[in-house]
């Protein structure tokens, strides 16, 4: 099936099986390996990308769904002003250990702050609840999001 969609700001036309997972399209066809596979069933959030500005699990999206959508991966996000702020905040807060969950958390945090630039602690917990981290116990990730809100005043 021929599909046209926007990937990190550029229009792409691909010809793939309509059930091929966006996760595989990104990792294998476009070599965008910042998107990780931790479960392949929507449970871990390591594969989270933004679709039209909102976090989605790329392992759950069939290619046929993509037509006309705009996809942003960590590769496309990292150089943006908000991407930079989140990057610094995650480093400063110590939110990264093994790092396998991290790109997904960054995208989830971006989606959360897009929707709610000033979340309460409970809303931060809720907003990140689709992303598993087995290393950090999450505390430093919460802190990173609060730090990003502080540092990135007005950006979201």
């Amino acid at each position, binding site marked *: 099936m021929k599909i046209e969609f926007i990937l990190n700001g550029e229009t792409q036309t691909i010809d793939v099986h309509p059930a091929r997972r966006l996760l595989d399209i990104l990792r294998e066809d476009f070599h965008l390996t910042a998107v990780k*596979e931790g479960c392949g069933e929507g449970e871990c959030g390591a594969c989270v990308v933004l679709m039209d500005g909102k976090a989605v699990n790329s392992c759950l999206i069939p290619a046929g769904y993509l037509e006309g959508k705009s996809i942003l991966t960590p590769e496309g996000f990292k150089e943006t002003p908000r991407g930079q702020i989140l990057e610094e905040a995650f480093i400063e807060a110590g939110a990264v250990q093994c790092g396998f969950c991290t790109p997904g958390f960054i995208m989830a945090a971006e989606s959360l702050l897009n929707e709610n630039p000033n979340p309460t602690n409970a809303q931060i917990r809720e907003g990140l609840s689709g992303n598993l981290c087995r290393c950090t116990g999450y505390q430093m990730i919460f802190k990173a999001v609060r730090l990003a809100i502080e540092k990135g005043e007005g950006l979201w």
Partner: protein
Amino acid sequence: MTISKSIKRTDAREKIRGEAQYIGDMSFDNPLYLKTVRSTRPHAKILDIHLPDLPEGCFIIDKSHIPGKNRMRTVVSDHPILAEDEVLYIGQPILLVAGPSRELVYQISEKIRIDYEDLPAVFTLEESEKQNCVFTEYSFSKGEPDTAFAQAARIIEDEYRTGLQEHVYLEPQGMAAEVKDDTVFVYGSMQCPFYVEDALTEALGRPSDKIRVVQTTTGGAFGGKEEFPSLIACHTAIAALATHHPVFLIYDRDEDIICSTKRHPSIIRYKAGLDDNNRVTVLDIDLLYDAGAYCGLSPVVLQRGIFSATNVYNFHHLKVHGRNFRTHTVPSGAFRGFGAPQSIFGTEMLMHNIAVSLGLDPLEFKMKHILKQGDPSCTGGKIHDKVILPELVERALDLSDYRQKIQKKKKFAGVGISLFLHGCGFTGNGEQLIKGKIILRKSKDRVVLKISSVEMGQGADTVLRKIVAHTLDLPIEKVTCEIRDTGLVPDSGPTVASRTTMIVGGLLKTAADEMKSRWNEAEDFEISKVYHHPDFLTWDNDTFQGNAYPTYSWGVNVAEITIDPVTYDIHIEKVTGVYDVGRAIDERALRGQMEGGIAQGAGWATLEVMKSKEGKLVQHNLTDYKVPTSMDVPEITCDFIDNPYEFGPFGAKCAGELPMSGAPPAVVAAISNALGIPLKEIPVTPEMLMELERHED
């Protein structure tokens, strides 16, 4: 600047940006993909294997392709790399299918049929005990337990249980292999490059200089990438040799859960003798650990289990007996804490429950029994270092407001406290046997660390580089780590047993001190160091007498929980942890370890239900096996009290595994406190609580 002041992690940026290369992110020219065909029977003879016709470029690899010995080398090398005539658990690897596309490989593996003849199987620890399927058995004692029991004023017997736990490192297991100029290269996610090299030497029947093992960025491990990667490294290497292609073997989550090692389930039986003053004078501990289908490194897990079974307490008379049992289930293996969290849970809850049953305050009761400097440990080794457990307890009580909270207890809310320790480094004479080696290389104004100890998320790179940079007064950017490639680095030992900072960091510190004094000697030179065991430590591995560990790290946890009276859902509100890890090399990195360990421990104690039914895991994906999310973790407060250790770098002891033992007994004591019922088994689930409550009613 003091060493403890936190710096930015050296690997954070590339991980955040998704630029770090995990094994699944690597690419090779014309790789073949591997898929493992596994046993569907818990115990059976393989009668016949029916293979489909293979398309061009596809291969089947079986035991006959193994050039060397068909055993995965570890402590007890009993696990066949690919099954021979018999399978002992569901998920055991039998064949490998290799092909140029995942689709082809999948199609072929779907068409393979295996005929089995089922054999009798043992599924539970109790059943295995009845049939006496023992892999290993140890015992030791202290004082005169029999006399002490005879003189005891009161005897209490009890039994405790802990369940399976899956690591859920976020990056599933994966390896790749290729052959270049007659050298086999294996790349992958792992804790112990030289364990893998060892296993390959034996499986491939080739010398280690024809094998290179290269660690890729490792997405979490927790013990799950200690011995298990050796197995799949053998699979990839054998396949690369057989097919003359680079090969990839990356597990999906479900496959990973089904076949990778888990934490040993346990049953621990106690008989305690108390005197008139309600002091436990004698304790008999019988530990049963479920090793699963193969023995592997279960003997050393059990050793740590039995040597940790007295936890922070000094019982004058003691009898300890431990056994590993075979069941026809997925093999158990290394998991953060390595056998200790099980026995510490049992003993902490025993102490808690005895106190409550006698109407005593659990904390006061525990404090009457704690070890002090100069006391003999359970194996009679002298506790050489200062024990600051009372200070840790005081700090934890203050930070958590424990006293106030336990007095003003509300309905369906509870608070609990746990005391715990972790023996630093290898058990017994392990360090002497391994003799870790490091090299520090100066080239102009830069220094390179050559070690095999890996970064797997715990922060080893940052901490070890910091030790050297701090000693040499260099900026951290000038101090780097050589990639963990067995062709390039010496064997500083496996990244296990919380030994990296204390032992390997200690060697690096000594080398850095020497380098500092010789700095101007030359532009380029190397210093190498080999581990030397401090002379004052003694250990007899036959009688289990002496210092089972060079020193201990200590901790106190206070947990606060609430229970939903309608659903019995447990909510862990807050955990306070205070620790003595000698001295923090980097406080934030350390905090990260403690917070992650608390979450993992709390998960094991409450959420993480994993059962097997007739040898088949009931929860085998992340939909059914639940680890804590951001909504489940408590608020965590951590603090550290400095107690520098003479033989650790800057006074550092061990840290990574310690927190795993603290949260479970603290959380369970809090639940017990909330409902006023004794609890003896984890995970504690709402199902279990409702059952117990109805029983009480």
